[in-house]
């Protein structure tokens, strides 16, 4: 086998590499550079602007943790807005809930969806559900025109240095607040606490969200292919608390198959390391 490696700089002094068997696809869209590789360890994986988005091997962790945590707090969620998520993984998890009536998925780059449909059917299958409605436009623009219509907003963004930048702004979070119903929950990809630059993004996001939502908590998951492997999610709401309002019995009755999420881990995910708690408290 050729000695081919995909490498990503997690900081300017730390590099993460995966041996690849081949590059399946590479193209420049209007917004970013899209590439798909195949690898012995992680299967196929998608990168945007040279940054790892998901691998077939570990994507279940990210997608389950983004979707099932809020769904176990308010199992009555009917209408969902998803920003980003062009790979379909979030849609696949949402599709498991019979009670969900409509999911609007707003992805700025149609090429990402096309690429995932072609190369990553394991996540893109999520789009095949008739309740999923795809909109190819700017997330900030879409949400500006909505008012009190969604029970849940999932922000599955890229890092704040790329096209996902606007999804980390105060004006975006404020518009999310406006778009949510009175019981509304927002969950967002919240970067990593470990490396300095990611930690700064985490603090900035937390400060802005806490300035908009009365409830603003952070939870964690272990995602091997993201920088440091320690990844965070934000849980913000207009009142529901992610731990004290959790409905484990109700969620377990649904009998959903998951590989990472369970209702005990749900609670554990909100118990953060001390240095993370301190960094978050500092930004409040």
């Amino acid at each position, binding site marked *: 086998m050729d000695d081919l490696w995909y490498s990503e700089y997690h900081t300017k002094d730390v590099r993460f590499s995966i041996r690849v068997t081949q590059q399946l696809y590479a193209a420049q869209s209007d917004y970013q550079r899209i590439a798909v590789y195949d690898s012995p360890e992680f299967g196929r994986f998608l990168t945007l602007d040279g940054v790892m988005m998901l691998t077939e091997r570990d994507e279940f962790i990210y997608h389950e943790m983004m979707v099932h945590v809020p769904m176990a707090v308010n199992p009555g969620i009917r209408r969902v807005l998803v920003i980003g998520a062009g790979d379909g993984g979030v849609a696949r998890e949402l599709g498991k809930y019979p009670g969900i009536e409509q999911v609007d998925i707003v992805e700025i780059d149609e090429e990402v969806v096309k690429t995932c449909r072609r190369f990553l059917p394991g996540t893109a299958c999520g789009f095949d559900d008739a309740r999923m409605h795809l909109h190819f436009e*700017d997330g*900030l*623009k879409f949400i*500006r025109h909505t008012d009190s219509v969604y029970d849940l907003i999932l922000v599955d963004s890229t890092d704040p240095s790329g*096209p996902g*930048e*606007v999804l980390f*702004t*105060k*004006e*975006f979070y*404020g*518009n999310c607040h*406006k778009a949510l119903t009175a019981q509304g929950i927002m969950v967002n990809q919240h970067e990593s606490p470990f490396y300095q630059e990611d930690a700064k993004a985490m603090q900035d996001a937390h400060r802005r969200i806490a300035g908009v939502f009365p409830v603003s908590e952070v939870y964690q998951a272990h995602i091997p292919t993201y920088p440091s492997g320690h990844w965070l999610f934000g849980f913000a709401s207009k009142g529901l608390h992610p731990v004290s309002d959790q409905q484990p019995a109700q969620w377990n009755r649904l009998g959903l198959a998951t590989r990472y999420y369970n209702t005990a881990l749900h609670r554990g995910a909100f118990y953060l390391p001390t240095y993370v708690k301190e960094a978050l408290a500092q930004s409040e």
Partner: protein
Amino acid sequence: MMDQTRAPLYEALERMKSDRLVPFDVPGHKRGRGNPALTAFLGEQCLAVDVNSMKPLDNLCHPSGVIREAEQLAAEAFGAAHAFFMVGGTTSAVQAMLLSTLKSGDEIILPRNVHQSVINALVLCGAVPVYVNPETDRRLGIALGMAMPEVRRTLAAHPAAKAILVNNPTYYGICSNLAEIVQLAHAHGLRVLADEAHGTHFYFGAGLPVSAMAAGADMAAVSMHKSGGSLTQSSLLLCGPAVNEHYVRQVINLTQTTSGSYLLMSSLDISRRNLALQGVQIFEKVKNFAAYARSEINAIGDYYAYGSELVNGDSIYDFDTTKLSVNTLGIGLAGIEVYDLLRDEYNIQIEFGDLGNILAYISVGDKTKNVERLISALAELRRLYKKDNSDMFESEYISPEVVLSPQTAFYAPKRSLPLEESIGEVCTEFVMCYPPGIPVLAPGERITRDIVDYINYAREKGCLLTGPECMDASRLNVLEKGEADG
């Protein structure tokens, strides 16, 4: 036709770099090597061309080589008979226009909403301002262009006036009927001077208001560093065919540095080339950004992002659609308050906010996602901060009473009085509300109750008041008793 793909000054600097000339001249940083911290900050590329005049690089005070060629290319690109590279900002170009046209005691007709640099130039040359009363849009609280009947009336009342100055356009994008003003002024033997600090793009974009040179004006001060993309403080002075360029150069040299910055000058050269080659496409993009933002901001409600619907054939003869001016009174906030909130809460820095409006500067450097951020932040401000607007200041044009020429008043014996006690006195200094930097009071004008009220309100809303010796404008310098009035 000259070859607009050339950039002679830039090319000469590239040659100088590749020749590895050994510097035993100023500047003392010697291509940056003598100042490592500055070089680390600004970059070696930048410091390497921060050089002094030398034979192959020509001399700004007496251009006969590459600067002259670059100026000729600029003149052609702008449709002017001659163009001067200016390194003291458009302020220096405005001063050169006035100082080369007017002498002490001469009258100049001008609108009140001129930039402070115009009245500063009057202090320098001793000319007397004759203000054309501009119409004010009461809803927007902004001064408009000069209406033709007012121009005619003022010309008839001041037959000895030497020049007329026109904003093309105003900061807010409003244009007067420049072509007709030129016809009328030339028929009366007046020179027409245009302040085009906000009009560089008129020379290159399609479907924009007429430029000063195309309208037949005699001189124009053009801020290349605004819509033209050159470095801050670089500017152009354009002259029509009836102007003696050699006399203008002498006037420029009265106050201009003899160490003209090659960073600034090369930025003018490169920007002119870019505009000449790409200008139409560039400003098409800017117009589209602005049009999109206008329609989205108007859809939010309560805001009014105005555009060419304002055009009334006279005091708003034309509107610059690249401008994104938004009236904020509908949400009960002054423009300056929205300006501060956007920066402090949303990390968005806009061009200015006055009492009733904001201006967001749109340019070729913008990205769609940033335009979306601006629109969304305005939507959020409305959602979070909207309040009753019945106590908002209704701005009206305050017609200045000119008692003395700006120069006479500025240099006259004076005393300092608290603002409240200065009513009725003759002011000897400027008071500007910044931004947009248009005088509230100029030297030689009577201080009135209305003016003091306006100053107090502007300060309360967070405007920066500049000009007076007393830096917070709580006191004003006024004419010593017995010095004035007659």
